[in-house]
């Protein structure tokens, strides 16, 4: 059948290249209202809860938020001082100062329903300057990256998707590795960790910025288990993602000063990192 051949052709092209990206984004622009409608019951219930909440609960929430705000502004004061110090030290070393990243807040409008994939739909698209490969974070850590852009929405692949990988380093000693998704919500795996590597349970993994996709220094996960078996070539290291992947309603799209320039379809990563989705 002609349709079967066309389908097979489309599949092959779509899987192996990005030629069909414009077609996908046109279709996605047509179809994305479906997600908005499907999400509306949750939206309405949230709105209703917000409208109907009692004065007491609002007061309690307000107190809690004030406290949180105080904590954060204390930390921010230290942060300003540390940033200045860091800039001075970098100047002494003669290395380039890192630029701060700009962020854009986006809201989740849908979750891709298939149990095998971990992707979500957000409400910002090409019209807001979102681009493929853009890093997405939430309040607690690295969330994922943009894999498809429609006009007013885009799709984000979560760090735990089995097709996702991100270059990381251990915050304690800068040991570099790759954190790959496993397809399970609470688990990342570090790839190719030698058995002699200095890595312990509780170590914080931050994005290393190698490969050029992700900005440096965002928390990715915390090491939960290190299994070293004498018969294995590599240690089995698992980590728990930092981002609240199944709870965050709002995420931040990061416009890193370095990644903002439009790149070619194939950015040729600095080290062989299989971080390209698909």
């Amino acid at each position: 059948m002609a349709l079967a051949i066309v389908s097979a052709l489309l599949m092959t092209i779509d899987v192996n290249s990005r030629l069909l990206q414009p077609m996908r984004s046109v279709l996605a622009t047509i179809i994305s209202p479906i997600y908005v409608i499907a999400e509306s019951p949750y939206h309405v219930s949230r709105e209703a809860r917000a409208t109907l909440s009692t004065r007491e609960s609002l007061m309690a929430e307000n107190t809690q938020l004030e406290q949180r705000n105080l904590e954060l502004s204390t930390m921010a004061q230290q942060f300003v001082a540390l940033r200045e110090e860091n800039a001075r030290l970098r100047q002494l070393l003669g290395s380039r100062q890192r630029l701060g990243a700009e962020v854009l807040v986006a809201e989740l409008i849908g979750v891709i329903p298939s149990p095998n994939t971990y992707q979500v739909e957000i409400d910002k698209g090409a019209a807001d300057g979102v681009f493929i490969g853009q890093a997405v974070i939430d309040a607690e850590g690295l969330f994922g990256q943009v894999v498809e852009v429609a006009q007013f929405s885009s799709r984000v692949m979560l760090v735990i998707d089995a097709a996702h990988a991100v270059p990381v380093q251990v915050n304690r000693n800068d040991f570099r590795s790759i954190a790959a998704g496993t397809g399970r919500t609470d688990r990342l795996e570090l790839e190719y960790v030698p058995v002699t590597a200095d890595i312990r349970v509780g170590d914080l993994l931050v994005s290393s910025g190698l490969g050029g996709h992700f900005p440096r220094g965002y928390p990715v996960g915390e090491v939960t288990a290190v299994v070293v078996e004498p018969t294995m070539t590599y240690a089995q290291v698992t980590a728990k993602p930092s981002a609240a992947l199944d709870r965050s309603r709002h995420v931040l799209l990061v416009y890193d000063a370095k990644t903002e320039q439009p790149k070619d379809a194939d950015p040729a990563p600095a080290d062989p990192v299989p971080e390209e989705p698909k």
Partner: protein
Amino acid sequence: MNPTRGGWVILLTIVIAMLLAVVHLPAGTPAWVGWLRPSWLVLVVFYWVMALPHRFGMISAWITGLLVDVLYADPLGVNGFCLAALTYVTWSFYERFRMYSVAQQGVVVFLLVLGTEFIRMCAQWVSRDGTLSFWVFVPAAASTVAWPLVAMVLRRIRYQFSVE
């Protein structure tokens, strides 16, 4: 009598099926519950092809499938192929399927959903690091359970709006 009536009804049911396919479960439900979702689109397309084979052809099934590909983040063309194949099979045997009881139709639905889910899983397996598993039987079984309800509702809709 106008021979093509109520096309918008067919379109609307397909849009509703897409909505049902992407409505996500409340946060905190375990992931395996997602497998219990019937393939609403397969059920709706199967019904319309069986009931009105002259109205819902392979091209429309294929275009619907393309939209579903984007909806599901599958490789472009997988669902188009699945739905077109489904339409072809149903179209070839629709007279026989119409004579079946709802239970027998349920068996047909089971096999069809199993086929489409299997093709989808293979495509995911080839294109990314998906895994093959026996979980495909679960949506097929769920669809069989949902079929009598879907058939009843769609029949009611078809007579109500006299879609021809």
